[in-house]
C-alpha cells in the first residue's frame, strides 16, 4: 500500500529526487523554486546526502557536472535567469554525455521579468538552450503526482541516455498542493563504468567535450544526434483524451493543460466534440502522435502561457491541411477555462477555412 500525502509540488519533486537515489543537490536561491533547496537542505542530511548552497547558478551547474562525472545521481534547480546562467554547463554536460537533473520552476521573462507562472522557457528547454547541437530530455509535469513521478523518470532517462534531463515546471505546479501516492519504483542504480573514480584496476579515462582532430567533432555530433533520434523513437510520453469525430483538438502542456482539461469538460458538457492532447515529454516532442491525431481533425487550438513557442512544434507536426490556432497568455495571466471555452466556440464557428491565427487574450 503506497503512502498518500498532500504535498506542495516542489516538495513532491524533491521527494521524487530522493526516491530516485539522488543524494547531491547544488543550487542558488531564486523565486519561485526556493521550496526545493529549503526542503532538501533539511532532507538530504537525513539520507546521508549532500546539500550545497552554491555561490551562483554557474557554480551550481558545474558542481552538478562534477558530481555526475563522478557517477552520482545529482541535481540542481532554478528558475528563468538562473537557468540561463546554467546554459554553458548544460552544453558541456550534453557534449560530455553526463547525466543529471536540472529543474526549471519557470518565472516570466525576458530579463528579471516576474515571478508568476509562465511557459516562456519552452523554447530554451526543448532546443538545448546553450551552444551547439544538443537537446535536453525535457519532461513537463502537470500535477503534483507527476512532479514526483516524472522526477524519478527523469533520473532514469538521464542515466539511460547519458544526457542531462530537465523538469520544466512552473510556479503553479511548484506552489500548489495535491494528494499524491509516494510509490517509488524499486531503486536500480545503473553501472557507470565511464565515471571517473580514480584509475584503480583499469586504465585512466577521460570525460571531455573538446574534439579538435579532423572529423572527430562531426562524428561526435552524429553520435549525439542518433541518441536524440532514439529518444524520439522510444521515449515519447503523451496523454490523450480523444473523441469520435472531433471538431477541435486542444493541445497544451504543463500547468496550462489543467485549465485546458477543465475547458474540455465544459465544452463537452455543451455538446462540442473536443479532443485533448498533452505532451508529457516536450523533448522528445510527440510529433508522430500529433500527426496521427490531427489526421482526424481539421482544427487544433494550442493554449500556452507564452507567445506560441510550442505552437511552432505543433505546426511542424500536423497532418497536411490541419490548421492550428493559438491562445496565448505570456504575462503571468492564466488562461481560464471560460476563456478557453470561448476560443473553442469561436474556432468551431469559424467553419472549415480558418486561417492560422493567433488568438490573444
Amino acid at each position, binding site marked *: 500500500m503506497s503512502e498518500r500525502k498532500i504535498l506542495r509540488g516542489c516538495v513532491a519533486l524533491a521527494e521524487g529526487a530522493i526516491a530516485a537515489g539522488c543524494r547531491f543537490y547544488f543550487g542558488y536561491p531564486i523565486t519561485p523554486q526556493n521550496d526545493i533547496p529549503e526542503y532538501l537542505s533539511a532532507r538530504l542530511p537525513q539520507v546521508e546526502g549532500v546539500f550545497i548552497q552554491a555561490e551562483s547558478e554557474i557554480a551550481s551547474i558545474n558542481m552538478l557536472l562534477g558530481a555526475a562525472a563522478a557517477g552520482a545521481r545529482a541535481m540542481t534547480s532554478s528558475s528563468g535567469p538562473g537557468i540561463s546562467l546554467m546554459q554553458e554547463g548544460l552544453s558541456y554536460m550534453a557534449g560530455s554525455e553526463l547525466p543529471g537533473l536540472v529543474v526549471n520552476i519557470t518565472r516570466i521573462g525576458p530579463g528579471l521579468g516576474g*515571478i508568476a507562472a509562465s511557459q516562456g522557457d519552452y523554447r530554451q528547454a526543448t532546443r538545448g538552450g546553450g551552444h551547439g547541437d544538443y537537446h535536453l530530455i525535457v519532461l513537463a509535469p502537470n500535477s503534483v503526482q507527476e512532479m514526483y513521478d516524472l522526477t524519478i523518470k527523469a533520473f532514469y532517462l538521464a542515466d539511460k541516455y547519458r544526457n542531462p534531463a530537465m523538469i520544466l515546471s512552473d510556479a503553479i505546479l511548484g*506552489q500548489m498542493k*495535491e494528494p499524491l501516492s509516494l510509490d517509488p519504483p524499486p531503486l536500480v542504480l545503473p553501472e557507470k563504468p565511464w565515471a571517473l573514480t580514480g584509475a584503480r584496476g583499469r586504465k585512466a579515462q577521460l570525460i571531455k567535450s573538446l574534439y579538435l582532430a579532423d572529423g572527430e567533432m562531426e562524428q561526435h555530433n552524429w553520435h549525439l544526434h542518433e541518441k536524440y533520434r532514439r529518444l524520439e523513437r522510444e521515449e515519447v510520453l503523451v496523454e490523450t483524451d480523444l473523441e469520435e469525430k472531433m471538431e477541435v483538438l486542444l493541445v497544451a502542456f504543463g500547468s496550462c493543460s*489543467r*485549465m485546458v482539461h*477543465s*475547458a474540455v469538460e465544459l465544452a463537452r458538457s455543451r455538446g462540442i466534440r473536443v479532443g485533448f492532447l498533452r505532451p508529457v515529454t516536450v523533448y522528445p516532442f510527440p510529433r508522430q502522435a500529433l500527426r496521427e491525431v490531427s489526421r482526424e481533425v481539421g482544427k487544433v487550438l494550442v493554449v500556452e502561457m507564452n507567445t506560441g513557442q510550442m505552437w511552432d512544434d505543433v505546426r511542424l507536426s500536423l497532418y497536411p491541411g490541419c490548421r492550428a490556432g493559438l491562445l496565448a497568455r505570456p504575462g503571468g495571466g492564466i488562461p481560464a*477555462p471560460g476563456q478557453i471555452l470561448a476560443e473553442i466556440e469561436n474556432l468551431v464557428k469559424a467553419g472549415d477555412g480558418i486561417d492560422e491565427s493567433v488568438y490573444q487574450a
Partner: protein
Amino acid sequence: MYYDVIFSGFGGQGVLLIGDILAQAAMLENRHVTWMPSYGVEIRGGAASCTVVISSQKIGSPITEEPCGLLAMSKPALLKFQHKVKKGGLLVVNTSFVEPEMITREDVIKICLPASEISYRETGDYKMANAVLLGAFVSLSRVVTLQGMEEALGVFFKEEKQKLLPLMIKALQYGSEFVCAGMNGDG
C-alpha cells in the same frame, strides 16, 4: 460533487493554514483536491489567499474565476473577491475586521461573525479566528464532515503544537454551532 473556495485575509491570520486543513480533510475523505496559494514578494501582514478545489472527479484547473465560496478575513480580501462569488454561493466574513455594510452581494448566502472576538472569548486567544470561520464554512458548505476536519487538524497540530489542538477543535466547533444555531447576525 465539485466545490471551489477562496480563503483570503492578511498574512498571519492563518488563511493558508485553514485552506491546507480543508484540503487535508478532503483527501482523508477520498476526494480529489487542490490547494493553490497566491504568492508574491513576502511581506508579513500583506494580503494572503488560497484557492481550494474539491471534487469527486479529477480536477482540471486549480484556480477559479467564479468560486462557490469565499471566506474573507479582511477588508481588502472582501473587496477583492466578493464580486467573483457564484450566484447563490457562500460568503463567510470575519466582522471583527470587516464592517458588514461593505458586503454588496445580495444574491449569496452570507455568514457574518466576529470571529476574533469569539476566538478570544472561547479560547483565550485571538489567533483561532480562522478556525472559527472554517467551522462555520464547513458546516454550511458541507464539502467535508466536521469529523473529517478534526481528523485533519490532528495532522497539523502534533508534537510541540499538540497543545493547540483542543483549542482549534473548540474554535472549529464553535464556528459550526454558530451556523447551526442560526446565530447569523444577518438573520
